[in-house]
């Protein structure tokens, strides 16, 4: 179980501190499938980075299965089972897809094991396993390899930041199938940051993050209609103006 208590985060802007997260309280029980959604710039990725330890909260505490992990490093959190697939993953000159997957798994993966993870994200493994994770990969390919590394790493809290971004329709259904199967077969909490209706509909719970706060929270049936109402509301407002 992951618990965030009163998390605040501010970054240094040109005119002093900019508040990016404001008093976020959140509990994610084991085995839950959660989707975080909300407008661009709302603070979703920042929230994920605070959980991973990439950003240190200016206030508040984070607990993993009851243990206070607020002061632990990224590496320590990773070893305790927190995993985070970046929204914009970096590229590596000279590192092969198979190397990256082995790093993630924490052991040298066999060819077949490496390929298995690529297949789960809809990549033809034969073509990719020996490729370099460099600028020769397309955006969608890189993104799917990033997701595959998270699958190879596993963990008890797995966060995926907009996994659907740049991914084609065929791979997309393969990917949602993979998320569903992790959800069915493991006790890991899955947190997906997404703007995609088809992913949002998979969730046990939806969390709306907007302006650095959690503004809505609840089961899909309850929250999804509100999201739709909100977006159409914004449109008609625009039309009127």
């Amino acid at each position, binding site marked *: 179980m992951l618990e965030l208590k009163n998390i605040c985060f501010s970054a240094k802007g040109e005119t002093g501190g900019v508040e990016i997260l404001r008093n976020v309280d959140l509990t994610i029980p084991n085995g839950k499938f959660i989707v975080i959604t909300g407008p661009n710039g709302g603070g979703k990725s920042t929230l994920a980075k605070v959980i*991973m330890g*990439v950003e240190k909260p200016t206030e508040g505490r984070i607990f993993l299965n009851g243990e206070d992990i607020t002061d632990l*490093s*990224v*590496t320590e959190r*990773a*070893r305790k089972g927190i*995993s*985070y697939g*970046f929204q914009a*993953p*970096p590229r*590596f*000159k*000279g*590192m*092969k897809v198979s*190397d990256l997957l082995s*790093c*993630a798994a*924490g052991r040298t993966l066999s060819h077949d094991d490496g390929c298995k993870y690529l297949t789960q994200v809809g990549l033809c493994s034969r073509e990719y396993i020996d490729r370099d994770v460099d600028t020769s990969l397309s955006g969608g390919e890189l993104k799917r390899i990033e997701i595959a*590394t998270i699958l190879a*790493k596993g963990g008890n809290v797995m966060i995926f930041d907009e996994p659907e971004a740049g991914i084609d329709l065929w791979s997309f259904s393969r990917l949602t199938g993979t998320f569903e199967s992790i959800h069915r077969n493991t006790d890991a909490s899955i947190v997906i940051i997404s703007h995609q209706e088809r992913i949002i509909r998979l969730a046990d719970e939806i969390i709306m993050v907007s302006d650095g706060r959690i503004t809505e929270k609840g089961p899909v049936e309850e929250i999804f209609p509100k999201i739709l109402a909100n977006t159409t509301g914004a449109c008609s407002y625009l039309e009127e103006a």
Partner: protein
Amino acid sequence: MKELTEVQKMMLQKVADMAKMPTEGAYNLRLNGKGFVRHSSEHIDIVPKEDKPGIDIYVKEGTKGETVSIPVVIDQSGMDDLVYNDFHIADGCDVTIVAGCGIHNCGCDDSKHNGIHTFYVGKNCHVRYQEKHYGAGDGTGGRILDPQTVLYIGEGSEVYLDMSQIGGVDSTHRYTKCELDDGAELQILERLMTHGEQTADSEVDVFLNGVDSRCQITSRSVAKDASKQVFYPRVQGNNQCFGHVQCDSIIMGDAKVRSIPEISANHVDASLIHEAAIGKIAGEQILKLMTLGLDAEEAEQKILEGFLR
């Protein structure tokens, strides 16, 4: 039968992937300035030079799929070794040449090896040349390598040079010169790592003389601590040709790196590109590997390993 010491075997493994001396094929091991063992094969003749130190290697026309290994090992402190190796590769050959030099210096005098390799590559050949340089030993004496590689590449031949200096060499000055005929193709991959107070500089001159000749020079280097590196890859297009130079360096600590690629065209259909970049390891890359459970040091190690592979 003369025996190698454990240190010599270890150096041989490092520079030529040879755990022991080969028992077949063509090879020549040079040890502390003298020929140690030499063997010619049916298609490849190795003949010692009479007028100066070194060997002539003759690869007969149409030789396919053979390897020649000519490693050099020095483990005597104070050794100053100069050697001329000439490769005469006849038309239509497909061969791999494994060169390399390991210096193990436990003494206080400088040990030095200058290998001057000249290749005369005929027409329609495929030649792979692999050269590894490595230094070890805890003496105060320097480990110095100043290799020269000169290639004349004939019509329609493809040559791949894979040259690396993987550590432990205090000072190196390397010079590589290649002249390409019609339709010839050259690929150079150079990898270099320096640490401590080491210095390395590498000069490359490629002359694209033939119509439709092509070259790709890729240089990857890591400069650590207070080491210094300088690169001068130069490509001259004298015909309808294509050339690409790419230098990429990772800089760390108090190191200094200069990268000075030069392309010059003397023909309207010459197409030449150069790219050079120097920078430290991207923070994002380290961070990514840390989120996979590596600590900062392990992450750095992994990134460098991949970069220099």
